[in-house]
């Protein structure tokens, strides 16, 4: 399936193609620097708390070849980081608007398919 490149982000001298919704066209383009650039593009600042959730998402994708909707994201975070972080309030605070979609974008995953 061909994905349209809507715009290009410049990260450390490399061009990183984004689709119309701002997700990476090629998932292999991801690096921590790309995540920082995507966050800056959104006026977000990544803290250690963001990074541990991004790592949970990347691990989820490695295991299941899919980006999780909100409920499984909460479950994955709870399993990896414990009860106090594995809840939707915490994730909403870290990634306002839609944690599953925003965090997937920053982690270089495709847009979650089962998520409105």
């Amino acid at each position, binding site marked *: 399936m061909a994905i349209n490149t809507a715009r290009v982000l410049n990260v450390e001298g490399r061009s990183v193609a984004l689709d119309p919704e701002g997700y990476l066209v090629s998932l292999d383009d991801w690096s921590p620097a790309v995540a920082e650039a995507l966050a800056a593009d959104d006026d977000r600042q990544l803290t250690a708390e963001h990074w541990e959730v991004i790592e949970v998402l990347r691990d989820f994708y490695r295991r299941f070849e899919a980006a999780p909707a909100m*409920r499984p994201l909460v*479950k994955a975070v709870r399993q990896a980081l414990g009860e106090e972080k594995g809840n939707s309030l915490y994730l909403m605070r870290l990634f306002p608007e839609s944690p599953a979609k925003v965090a997937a974008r920053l982690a270089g995953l495709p847009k979650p398919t*089962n998520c409105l």
Partner: protein
Amino acid sequence: MNSTSGISPATTAIDAPQDLLIVLRHAPHGSSWLREGLDVALVAAAFGKRVGLLFQGDGVFALLQGQSSGPLAQKGTHPQLAMLEMYDIEHLWVSEAALAARGLPVDSLMLPVTSLEASRIARLMHSHPHTLIF
């Protein structure tokens, strides 16, 4: 007869009807029926519905180990099945006759399932308010 392999989910009892029963009757390869059935299960679960799966006919092949992506680079169904647990889809039933006809022992499957004889499958379907067949 009713046997469960591996670690048994908390409740695999037949009298635990879910909101939605999805019947999977196609093997992982050759068509997208299995993937589409699993996609519907995941969407329903993502919206908080309790979903049960019944593997029938060639659908039991989905439960074999290692249904990963092939040379055509299409996604395999193994990761999708492994992901069911993350969506709290834990009621998995399989037709005992379908396993027997294909020579598959229930303990060779990648997920813990409850195998059911024909009469119990009829009761299973009867007990669910909604059933989708793929």
